[in-house]
């Protein structure tokens, strides 16, 4: 009887959802082709050691998604809706970053200003666009998806406009680090950036009341107001934080290719970010949130993408597979199904116990 309860408890843990998906994919790959897990140490063109293999690719490409998932989780928790302008915002932030790095000359050999300055400027710009979304949602009470539709539609044009529709190309190799490797360290830099963002997030949640305030507002706005909180301001804050995450993701994305293509950079990434939040077991209607689960969700999505690429699934069919994941997710995250699975385990254990008792 006790064991059954434990199973039920385990199955009700939020982190179980992405973890189960993760294990499922891991086992599938192990059975289908164990070479999936092969990691080799090689040297890149600069002569520095780098690790390569599918797992490394997942850590690498899943990182910007994980960063976005953090911001998206906060926005979801506070406003009970999602920001669908993330991809367009990455285009804007990335465009701003390259504009600062290259200056007016799109082919300049030298950096126009230190990378850190350009990055901070792009971060401010992304935060301002986040604040714009946040104000629409919090003060004008527009549904988040509708409010962010504005930037979703206009964002990529704004990005093109920032650079007069030219395609700036960075030639300075020091910019390649953020989407590549730090000389001497064989693990991709994006993963380290993601870890840094995670640590900062953890510190913020530990040393501020952000978590408590955001959850209160998301669960019961009226009651939060009566407890002295300012729900509008907090909602705007979460959108600004998402903007910061966006600028970090834009840094990685533009660094990978050293250039930007406004119409396709980070295309559809908002859907993956939202999916990561959902896969993390967070209620898309807001309230309580679990950031580690969202991060794991993001890496699981990249795991899925990489697996599909490995099996040579046509990349325009990827979204169909993701849709299947969404369906499974919706079914398995519902209280009743999880309770039922927990119950099933309980039953099996009980039957076993019964048999043992008999014999």
């Amino acid at each position: 009887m006790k064991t059954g309860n434990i199973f039920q408890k385990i199955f009700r843990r939020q982190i179980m959802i992405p973890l189960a998906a993760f294990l499922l994919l891991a086992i599938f790959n192990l059975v289908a082709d164990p070479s999936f897990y092969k990691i080799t140490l090689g040297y890149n063109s600069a002569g520095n050691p780098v690790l390569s293999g599918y797992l490394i690719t997942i850590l690498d490409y899943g990182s910007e998604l994980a960063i976005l998932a953090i911001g998206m989780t906060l926005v979801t928790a506070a406003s009970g809706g999602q920001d669908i302008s993330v991809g367009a915002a990455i285009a804007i932030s990335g465009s701003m970053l390259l504009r600062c790095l290259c200056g007016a000359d799109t082919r300049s050999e030298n950096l126009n200003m230190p990378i850190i300055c350009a990055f901070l400027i792009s971060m401010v710009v992304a935060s301002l666009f986040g604040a714009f979304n946040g104000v629409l949602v919090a003060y004008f009470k527009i549904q988040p998806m509708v409010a962010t539709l504005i930037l979703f539609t206009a964002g990529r044009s704004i990005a093109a406009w920032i650079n007069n529709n030219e395609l700036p190309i960075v030639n300075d190799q020091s910019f390649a680090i953020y989407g590549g490797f730090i000389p001497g360290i064989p693990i991709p830099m994006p993963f380290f950036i993601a870890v840094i963002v995670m640590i900062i997030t953890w510190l913020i949640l530990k040393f501020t009341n952000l978590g408590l305030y955001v959850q209160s507002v998301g669960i019961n706005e009226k009651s939060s107001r009566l407890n002295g909180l300012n729900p509008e301001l907090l909602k705007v804050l979460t959108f600004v934080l998402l903007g910061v995450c966006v600028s970090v993701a834009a840094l990685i994305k533009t660094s990978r290719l050293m250039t930007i293509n406004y119409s396709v950079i980070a295309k559809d990434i908002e859907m993956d970010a939202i999916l990561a939040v959902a896969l993390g077991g967070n209620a898309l209607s807001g309230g309580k949130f679990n950031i580690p689960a969202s991060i794991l969700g993001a890496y699981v999505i990249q795991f899925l993408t990489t697996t599909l690429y490995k099996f040579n699934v046509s990349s325009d069919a990827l979204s169909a597979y993701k849709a299947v994941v969404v369906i499974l997710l919706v079914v398995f995250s519902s209280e009743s199904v999880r309770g039922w699975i927990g119950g099933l385990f309980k039953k099996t254990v009980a039957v076993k116990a019964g048999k043992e008792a008999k014999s």
Partner: protein
Amino acid sequence: MKKRILAVLMALVMVLCVAGCGGGGAAKKGNGLIKVGIINNDPNESGYRTANDKDLKATFCEANGYEASFAYSLKNDEQITYAQKFIQDGVDYLLLSAADTAGWDSVLKDAKDAGIHVILFDRTIDADPSLYDASIVSDMAKEGDTAVNWLKGQGLSEYNVIHIQGVMGSAAQKGRTGALDAQVAADASWNLVTQQTAEWNAEKAQQIVQSVIDSGASFNVIYAENDDMAKGAVAALDKANISHGVGKDVIVMGFDCNKWALQELLSQNWNYDGQCNPFQSSYIDEVIKTIESGSSPAQKTIIMDEKGFDASTITAEDVENYGI
């Protein structure tokens, strides 16, 4: 009557750009200029289109004896409205890069009745050939053939190709894929390591190549159907320390001849770039001259000369002249 004036006024407002070359509403007989109305897609659509628009503007100006009006839209119905407006304005030539292949019959008939010559450029339409005087287009299949022939000429003992395709079903994708597919089917020493669409997207191309590298499969050619995707592929190669370019392990091929891509050729990082010629204006100019002289063009469909650039022979001048 009032309504009609209003309609004309509205059409006028909708014209995004009225060429600055012409001296106003003066007729051809008055100042000897040939009036052309040019309907094109939005120049911001791509680098190709920007170059295309620039080229047209450079050719059709007063210095060359033209009075040109430009109208841009990515929507077929708006383009048709512009065409009607140009017909009413009494242009001598209507130059058209149609957004969509269908729906042009009636408006082109009007043009014909009004004695206006129609010249299609860049894109063909589904209409009776008698409705237009000439059509100046790229032959995507030929672009593919040129590229594959070039590759054949490299004399590798084995061709293991990563084929990165554009948006499936687009004319460029079909033409450029067809030539490679035919060659792979015909010759046993040609293999496709992977054939995947990256939808013209550099990031996706990077992931596709990354996936092949992770799998450990060997390859020696990257055939990317545009420059952006070739760039993404090269980023993945760089990361894994796989050498590419002239005399290196992997041959890199792209299309469209972006200036930055040709520079990659010039610095020997890539091997080949196939042109998709946006410079139709000289052909159009020639057709107009022929018609003005009283004869009609020898062929209705004129296929433009399109080059393929080889990194070992490209010059800095080529980059300047052909880069878009």
